[in-house]
């Protein structure tokens, strides 16, 4: 990605962050590292929360977007609760996920596939259907892994933790209407 594109992404990202309540606080980050130190998954992240803000300031957000970072956030809100600059960082993380999905900056990895499959299943039935979710996930990532896990799946089905047939929510049509309305609304926004 060239510097101009990179800067554009940074600006687009910032603009969307500002729409979050207290999102503008991101400008006041003092780089103390409380967020990264509090984050239960930051050790596995290529860039911790503090480094995301530093990259953003340096105009190098594309590096973050092509990393695994955002998909490792478990939404525990520790960073948000502890941040001395009161930055709602977990919410910022959601914006990052969205922008990464929309821009297709990174190639699909395990976490992205899992997230996308989950959304697809929920869109379809209005709730999760574990069997279909895992079928989609393993099919796109490592089908052999899926086969290896069949005995476990059978045990789960036997214990009624997994269901072969999906269960739908009541009013699924209404939910779909709502979701598409939200999508359209976002597309209309500049």
């Amino acid at each position, binding site marked *: 990605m060239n510097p101009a594109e990179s800067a554009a992404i940074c600006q687009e990202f910032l603009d969307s962050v500002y729409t979050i309540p207290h999102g503008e606080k991101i400008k006041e980050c003092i780089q103390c*590292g409380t967020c990264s130190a509090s984050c239960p998954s930051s050790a596995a992240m290529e860039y911790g929360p503090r480094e995301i803000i530093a990259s953003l300031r340096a105009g190098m957000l594309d590096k973050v977007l092509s990393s695994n970072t955002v998909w490792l956030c478990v939404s525990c809100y520790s960073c948000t609760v502890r941040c*001395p600059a009161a930055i709602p960082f977990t919410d910022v993380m959601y914006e990052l996920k969205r922008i990464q999905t929309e821009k297709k900056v990174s190639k699909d990895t395990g976490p992205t596939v899992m997230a996308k499959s989950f959304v697809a299943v929920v869109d379809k039935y209005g709730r999760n259907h574990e069997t279909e979710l895992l079928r989609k996930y393993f099919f796109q990532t490592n089908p052999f892994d899926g086969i290896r896990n069949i005995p476990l799946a059978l045990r789960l089905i036997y214990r009624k933790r997994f269901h072969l047939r999906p269960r739908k929510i009541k009013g699924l049509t209404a939910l779909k209407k709502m979701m598409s309305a939200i999508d359209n609304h976002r597309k209309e926004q500049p």
Partner: protein
Amino acid sequence: MNNDKKIGVYVCHCGTNISHTVAVDEVVAHAKTLPDVEVAREYKYMCSEPGQELIKKDISEQGLNRVVVASCSPLMHEGTFRKTCESAGLNRFLFQMANIREHCSWVHNDKADATKKAKHLVGAAVGRVGFHKPMELREAPVRPETLVVGAGIAGIEAALRIADSGKTVYLVEKEPSIGGHMAQFDKTFPTLDCAACILTPKMGMVAQHPNIKLFSYSEVEAVSGYVGNFKVKVRRKARYVNEKKCTGCGECTSVCPVQTRSQFEENLSFRKAIYRSFPQAVPNTFLIDKKGRAPCRAACPAGVHTQGYIALIADKKYTEAAELLRKDMPLPSVCGRVCYHPCEDKCERANLDDSIAICALKRFVADWALNQKIEVKPLPVIKKEKVAVVGSGPAGLACANELIRRGYCVDVFEAAEKAGGMLRYGIPAYRLPEEVLDKELAYLQNIGIGIHTNQKVASVESLKSKGYSAVFLSLGAQGGMQLKISGDTSRGVIDALEFLRSVKSGSLKQCKGTVVIIGGGNSAMDAARTALRLGAKEVKVIYRRSRAEMPAHDLEIEEAVKEGVTFEYLAAPTKIVSKDGQVRSLICQRMKLGEPDASGRRKPIAIEGTEFETPAEMMVTAIGQVPLLEKMAPSLKMTPSGWIETDPITLETTEQGVFAGGDVVTGPSTVVDAFAAGKRAAESIDRYLAGSDMRLGRDQLPSVAGAPDISKTPLAKRAEPARLDDATSKASFAEVISTLTEAQAITEAKRCLACGVCSECLECLMKCEAAAIDHNQLDEIVEVNVGTVVIATGFESFNARKMARYGYGKLKNVLTALEFERLSHASGPTGGEILTVDGKTPQSVAIIHCVGSRDENHQLSCSRVCCMYSLKFAHLVKEKTGAEVYNLYIDMRTPGKGYEEFYRRLLSEDVHFIRGKCSEITDLAETPKEKGKLFVHCEDTLLGVKRRIPVDMVILATALKASSTAPEIAKQFSLSCVQDGFFLEKHPKLAPVEVATDGIYLAGACQGPKDIPDSVAQGAAAAACALSLMDRGKVIIEPITSHIDAKLCSGCQVCVQSCPYEAIVYRAEENRSEVIEELCKGCGTCVAGCPSGAANQNHFERNQIYAELEGVLKRHTAKIGVKQSSGFGSDQKGKQTQPTYQDQAL
């Protein structure tokens, strides 16, 4: 008159401060259109020399007689321009300022709107200035005394500077010693000289300075007046030690039994209840920590020093404890057996586990004393008056005990064969063995109380004729109430008191068959249990209400039930059936409960046709007691039921010099109530004989101590005395409950939470050779008049508990900065050794910066000193222990002389600096080796790596926050506070120690976090400001005062009441009020309050205000060239925009 006005308008650009947002040329053009405006000009800087010259020139050349300057806030330059006018020969009050910077350009973005608003503001000023009148300035004297509030290093510095110039300083400090936080510090950065070494000489100078009047342990109560003459009320909190007499020898602490945590040592070590903050304290006076009367003592009717004897027992000082008890009550061993201990019901410990066994402890120590073979000497008689006590029950003996200790000769007269009254004849031996009573009576006789038995007193007159100056009647209620039903004279029907008396005297030795007891009081229980012991086959208590209404004490009922007494509730006897004059059975009727009666208990109502018969060989009636009285004096007034009438406070009877108390006044009551009555009467008799006011101060209740902190107190079981088993107990008259053992007593006494802190055991009183201790000292209010005030109230440390993730208060070895200062201090709890809680030298220590500061959740500001003191801590730890030290910082801030050098020095000392804020501290060990360590988590932001550092100790660099007293002080002295709570200075750069109110100055950390050098500098600066004002000796006061039009005044005096400066007096002869100009501050309250419009204020007269309002609200036609916008009132016709404030107003 109108034609005479010539107004000049000058609009300032203020560089670009104004002109950037306001079209100055348009404002000038607009001004020119306003009536009476002779000239209007603009200039880049009106306040500059050429700007002012412009005005002067116009005044002299064009003959201007009014001037308006539209520029900044009048706070900034009103004085400047008034002087300009004055130097050109124009009265300074013929000037008006329009604020188009702070009120306009700085707060608006839209140029068109801002310009429009500026025009309105100028219009208002022009309108107003036309009505201005020339006035002359006033002068007021400035008193040459200063009040300095707070005696930390800043306050000390200010006080010494002012005092050295010969002026008087009143130095008020809320803590017992001066010195503030600096007195707690070990070393000071960056020079590492010892804080005490540089502070204590200054503290000593304060103590010795002839011009400093030190009010330590005092607080400002109220402030009135104004610059030059403030009236300040100072509350000198009671130290309970006379400052003038105390020599500071410290002997008192050696006898004080109460230990409590030392606040000066940050609760790391203990001190006594009588204490001095630290050995170098100034003043070198001890004080007693009293949180109020302990709840147990407050609950005791006789006001016994419960916490006192408990503390002494815990300290194994039994002799002293017993002596304290005996001063409070005549028969402590008896009381320890029979009291219903209301004290234990109020014991705060009950909120934790179980109340303290206060009564059992009293019995333990009183018994211990009775068993000592010490010769008791009579107490000296120092008063010439003799007092007679009639009746030797608890009330009489309490009165005698109290009076003999006050030096009176007391004689007790008893009609019966033996002394003790109801205690001897009314309480069975299994509750109170007779030998205990005998031993106690012997003790009372030994201290000099004359007890004369077999002496029935016929009349008060006979006593008076024998030379007794006062008489106390405590005759008790000896008669039993009659049942008054048919058959009540049968053999076998006996009154409870008579029954108990016969058993005691030995005339009744046996009971047979079924014994029925009528009644539900304590006497009924005593009779029931006694009957059991005399061999009754069955004992049945018949009571007309239910268990809940029974007046007998719960404990007594439980004991009776345990021993096998049966109860028949809601039944009343109607007839006694007898054969040959001997009772055979009893006819009873069932009852139900109706509405509550006068006693608050539900009234029993008989149910017709529910009679039943109960066989009974004997029947004991215990339905109430009556006094057996003959009239002892002609004018002695009795109540209709036969009790003596007394004054409730003094216990005086209607006969002069005769007092009465106990059951004979109140009806049957408890022993401790009788003691209380005896003591109360003794106090009255003492006052009566001394001829002083018998009521003064006696109806006031003492303040009761609040709940103590029980968060750290471990649970502990209440001591239970050994007791006979139920089978043995009901077979004999042996005492059922025994005394606590010594070991039990000590453990139990140590459970006491010391609610009042000082236990009032009065040991210190006896130890103090200088006689400096006064447990009854009261707070004192001192009023001082001063010309100036210096506020130096300092800071408070951030409460680290608020950052729960650092575990302060939960994890061991997590310290705050002040705790570490004490730990490292040579005279601290460890003598300067840095040790963990387990007494080990730490191998590794982490110092966490910015705890509570630079944090939106707590305090946004940087505390300025934490980086530097953290470096100092790192150095001290390294120097004293050689431990690995980790400093976790966000940014290192070392601005100050020698500070950066100190940082470099620490870097060279191999201290680890990690850039990253600590996210949490845990004690979660991952391997057995790690056990006992603390783990500091952070991101090393320079590496981008998460770290988990095992350490032995963590020091939290806690923020400096505004003192919690700041809002109160701000209110008293009319100061403003910034968001963090620190006081707001007049100007952050140019007037850092002044405030908006003249004559009041700030010094030190109350204005914002600062280190010692800065605090000292501010102290000196505040002193210089105060001195310059006092040296001038006068202040200029604007003549903006109010005045009352005598013709309009109706004399309603609303103004008199509303004036906060007491500047208005009412002249009754003329029926009008008048303003005393010297006292008037020009606040305008009277003007607003006056219903007839008679009150008016110079420079704020009605026509001036109306003209200003008209100017501000006047609709102006839009000028060409500036785009109209809808925000600030549009004049475009047809297209109606949103209503603006003008539209609404006009």
